[in-house]
Every structure is written in structure tokens, then in C-alpha cells.
């Protein structure tokens, strides 16, 4: 039913896809979605009837807004690498902060604004993919849901005569588990140990994500069935050569 409506829509809009979405134009192709999420949030926060910080000093709202927006913008997978690089640069100082807090009671907030933003962004990034740290059954359910969302986008793209990315293509369903293996690996397994330790929740996150990667590799068939695909074959190693941006599409 849904696929049908997409097709009908596509017929009506022949050629429309040559132009960009206004959101992408507004934000110059830089994290358009994340900018929209943050803007929606801020717009709600600023509504007089919903502004739950209006009784406090204006600086509180200003800071909360600034931190929240910055953290949301960190969730863009495209800038994952640059954020990780920035984070790696902040780690030594962050570790000193952690050490000072553990030794003395007062918080030693000698972190610069950039460093604070980086830390908050890392927390939200980890939380965004937090299902990797959940029991495998739940994680698999999330992956199935995400897969379906990708496929629906792939259906739209096909209806428009575009070529969807492999992991968005129902016909190439075996890509998904392998991309999840890569995702788990990219987010957790490959992080240097000292960086993992820097965040309080990192070790269990890491362990579960690592286990998730293993289980995905071994459970390709199960995931395939969960995603309602026609083919029930599929081998992770076969997709190694596919260079798509699967791991970071969240």
C-alpha cells in the first residue's frame, strides 16, 4: 500500500528530484536533518507556554539551548570522523578532569567551551546508537526497524528512477547485517582503549557492541528473516568489497 502511494507520487513528480529539498538548501547541505531536529526543539522551548526555564535567569535557557543544539548536531553521521578526531584531541584533558573529580569533590571544570561541546556531543552520539549496547534480541529488533526504514527510502528512490545505496535496496538485503557489523565495529571495537575508558559508560557499551558485531556476523540469517527479505542466504565476507556508507547511516 505504501509502496503504491510512493509510486503514484513519483509519477506526479517526474523530474522533481532534480532539485534539492528546501531543507537541504536552507542548511547548505550541512547536516540538514540535524539542523531541523535542533530547530524544532528550540522553537518549542521558546514558546511562552512551553518554556519551562522562563522562571530562571536568561543565561540558563541560553546555555541549555546552546548545549542541546550542539549535541544534536554531533549526531550527524557524516561528521562522525571529524567529531571523533576532535574528541581524540580533547581526551587527555578530559581524563585529567575525570581524575581530578575522582580525587577531590568539587568539579574541576577547566574545560574550554569546545571541549564541553565535544564531550556532550560524544554522550549523545553514544546514546543515539545505544541500542548496540542492549541485549542482542532488542538490538536486532532495532536493526530490523532501521532496515525497513532504509528499504522504504530505497523504494522511493527506485520509483524515482534513482539507484538506491546497496543497504537501502531490498533486492540486496544481505548488505544489512554486514553493514551492522561494520557499524558496531566503527563505533566501539575500533576505538582506542584510553578513549573508551574516558567515558563512564564506555566499557559495557564496548563489550556489548563487540558482542553485537560477533553475533551479527554469526546471525546473518536471523537478521535477514527479521527484515522480511526474500533471500535467506547471505554471507558477510561476500559483502566486504561493497564500499557503501553503511556503518554510519543512523
Amino acid at each position: 500500500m505504501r509502496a503504491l502511494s510512493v509510486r503514484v507520487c513519483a509519477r506526479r513528480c517526474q523530474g522533481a528530484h532534480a532539485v534539492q529539498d528546501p531543507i537541504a538548501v536552507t542548511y547548505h547541505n550541512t547536516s540538514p536533518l540535524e539542523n531541523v531536529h535542533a530547530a524544532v526543539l528550540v522553537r518549542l522551548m521558546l514558546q511562552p507556554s512551553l518554556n519551562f526555564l522562563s522562571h530562571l535567569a536568561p543565561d540558563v535557557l541560553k546555555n541549555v539551548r546552546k548545549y542541546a543544539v550542539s549535541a544534536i548536531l554531533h549526531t550527524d553521521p557524516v561528521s562522525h570522523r571529524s567529531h571523533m578526531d576532535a574528541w581524540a584531541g580533547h581526551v587527555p584533558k578530559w581524563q585529567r578532569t575525570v581524575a581530578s573529580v575522582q580525587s577531590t569533590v568539587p568539579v574541576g571544570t577547566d574545560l574550554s567551551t569546545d571541549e564541553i561541546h565535544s564531550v556532550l556531543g560524544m554522550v549523545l552520539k553514544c546514546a543515539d546508537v545505544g541500542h548496540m549496547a542492549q541485549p542482542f534480541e532488542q538490538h536486532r529488533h532495532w536493526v530490523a526497524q532501521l532496515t525497513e526504514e532504509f528499504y522504504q527510502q530505497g523504494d522511493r528512490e527506485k520509483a524515482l528512477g534513482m539507484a538506491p545505496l546497496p543497504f537501502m535496496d531490498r533486492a540486496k538485503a544481505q548488505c544489512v547485517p554486514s553493514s551492522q557489523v561494520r557499524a558496531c565495529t566503527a563505533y566501539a571495537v575500533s576505538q582506542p582503549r584510553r578513549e573508551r575508558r574516558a567515558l563512564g559508560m564506555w566499557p559495557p557499551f564496548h563489550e556489548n557492541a563487540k558482542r553485537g558485531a560477533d553475533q551479527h556476523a554469526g546471525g546473518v540469517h536471523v537478521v535477514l528473516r527479521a527484515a522480511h527479505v526474500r533471500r535467506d542466504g547471505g554471507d558477510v565476507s561476500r559483502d566486504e568489497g561493497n564500499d557503501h556508507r553503511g556503518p554510519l547511516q543512523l
Partner: protein
Amino acid sequence: MSSELLTRPQPSMGGACPAASDAQRVAALLDFSGEALCVFDFQSLTLVFCNNPAARLIQGRQGTTQPGALSMYDLTALWLGSYSERVVDDMLARFQHGHPYIWEPRAACGSAVCSFSAQYYKGGSLDGILVKAKGLDSDAAGAPQPCCIHISSALGHVHSMTRPPRAAAPGLSPRPEPSTALRPALVELAAPSSSHAVATPSMLRTRRKSFLSKVSATPNVWSVLADPTVHAMLERSADLGGWDAFDFDHVTLHNPLTAYTLWALRASGLMRHFNLPEDKVVAFLATLEHRYSDNPYHNRVHAADVTRSVHYMLSAGMHKYLDPEQRLALYIGAAGHDAEHGGLSNTYLCATNVRARCACGR
């Protein structure tokens, strides 16, 4: 028939046309045309119908409104409750005869307030209301005005529905497309009805059934949190393996984000630290939650799950290193981090304009 329901209000008392920014802000909330059915589960609610988007704050059970011009007439509101057929018929009859508990136009303060209290009908809880409003868009002078309907309950501000003026006022740019991410089912249901006759109870029940299948109920979040099952799940959520977002979605009647974030703000002590007004926080969260579409993945369950992950990380030790403002920003940021996600990736949005041109987007 429906026009007899109400005392026709006095002509406009010269209520100021709201500032363009106000009107636009409200117009961005939700398109409203003709009829909408909102489903609740609580003991009482207050409806305020007015044409002044600035008059939007409703507190408690008694509707309080700011002055504004009243330009509304011919309005019908009907109850839908989880009652036996006889009781529903009885309620409808009472309502149509202008039962004092049910309908109270307040022309003097520039708005009309309609308040219900299900406690008058013992044994049942009010869980739905159908609102039909006509002629809400012109004042006595016939000038088009933006108008809106506020529905609030003990939950706080639940819904705000508005219809932009038919002819764009100067300085008010016409709104190009309704945001596709906004409660699609509600918009769908707001299709103009063929006749203005009052719907029969059986018609309403049929509509309610189909509506309930599309839109989750908006429960009283405090009663949800008081539920022992929910409480136990929340207490376990700080453990690594003690959380199932899908179960939580189920037990909170598909309002996981509001319920979880409110609880987390309480549990983390931020509510007390900032002395946050709980009703406003709930109103904010409920509005935010409705900004999530029913995508397979990027939906309100995901948002609640991410908020829980943030809570887990903070309570596992991170809270020591961050100041309260930063922690609050993380909770709020997590709750809103995928608001109005259309289920399409950045790559897609950068490559196409299909979503904007067709009304087929979610």
C-alpha cells in the same frame, strides 16, 4: 441544530490581531479544518476556543484565558467515552442541551471555555472527544483571523490546533505546505465532513475506533508514572540490561518519551535543582513527542530509548563531570534529537525535492 448549542457570542471586542510572528508560530503547530478527534484518557479537560493565538495558556481545570476577540460560532463538541451505549447517549443528550457542566461560553473574556469533568459520570474515564468547529475564521467585521483551538487537560497543554487565515494578512507569508511530520492521522481525520449535522453516537463510535487504531491515546502522564508496572520498568532502566524500550512503549500507551523524560528529570534531581514547573515540562514533552512521526525507526520509541541511554550514562558516572545545565541539555537534546524526522536520510534530502513537492511525505 448545532447552532442552538451555543449562545451566539457577542461581536468582537476589538481584539488585537496577533503579531505576525505569533500567528506564524501557531500556524506551524497544526492545520485545523473542520473537525478533529482527540483521544485522551483522563478525568477532566478544558477546551478553549479562541481566535487569538496569544491566548494559549491554560492551567489546571479551570480555563483561564487572556483577553482576545471572540469570533466563533456554531460549534459542536461531542464526547466519546469508554461507557456503555446508554451512558454515551445520555451524555450526548446532556451536551446537546447545553448542560452547564459541559459548556460555558465566556464571551466576556474574549474566548469560550468548554470544560468537562468525567467525575460526573462515575465509573468511567473520559477518553475521547470529538470537536467540530465551524466559522472560526471570521470576526464580526468579516475580516479573516487566525483562529485556534486549545485542548488541555490535567496533563497540561495537550493539543493546539489552528487554522491559518484564508487570505493571508499583510506581512504574514502564506504557509506553503503543512509539515508532513505533524500527526498525520489527526490531519487526515480533519477532512471536511459532508454535512454539518451532529454525528450520531454510532457514527462517532465507528470513527473513534478507526481513529484509535491510528493515534495513540495521550494519557495522563502522572497516572502512567504511578502505575506499578511502569514504575518497576523505570527503576530498572538504570541497569544495563533492565530495559526494553518496546515494552515501555506498550505500558505507557505509546507515550514513552514524555513518561521517560519526565521520570528521568525527576530521578536525576534536575527537576528540583532548577525548580522546573512540572506541568510546563509535561506540556513541552507531550508537544515534542507529537513531533515524531511513525517511522519504523526514527520514532518516539527511539527518542525515549536514546533519552534512557543518556540517563544510563549520566547515572553511571558521567554526572560528576557535568554541571546541571549541561545535564539538562543532554536530556532535552536526547528527547528532541530526531524530532520531525521524515524517515529519509540527509543524502536523500540533498539529492531530491520530492518530499517538499508532494504531500505524500509522512
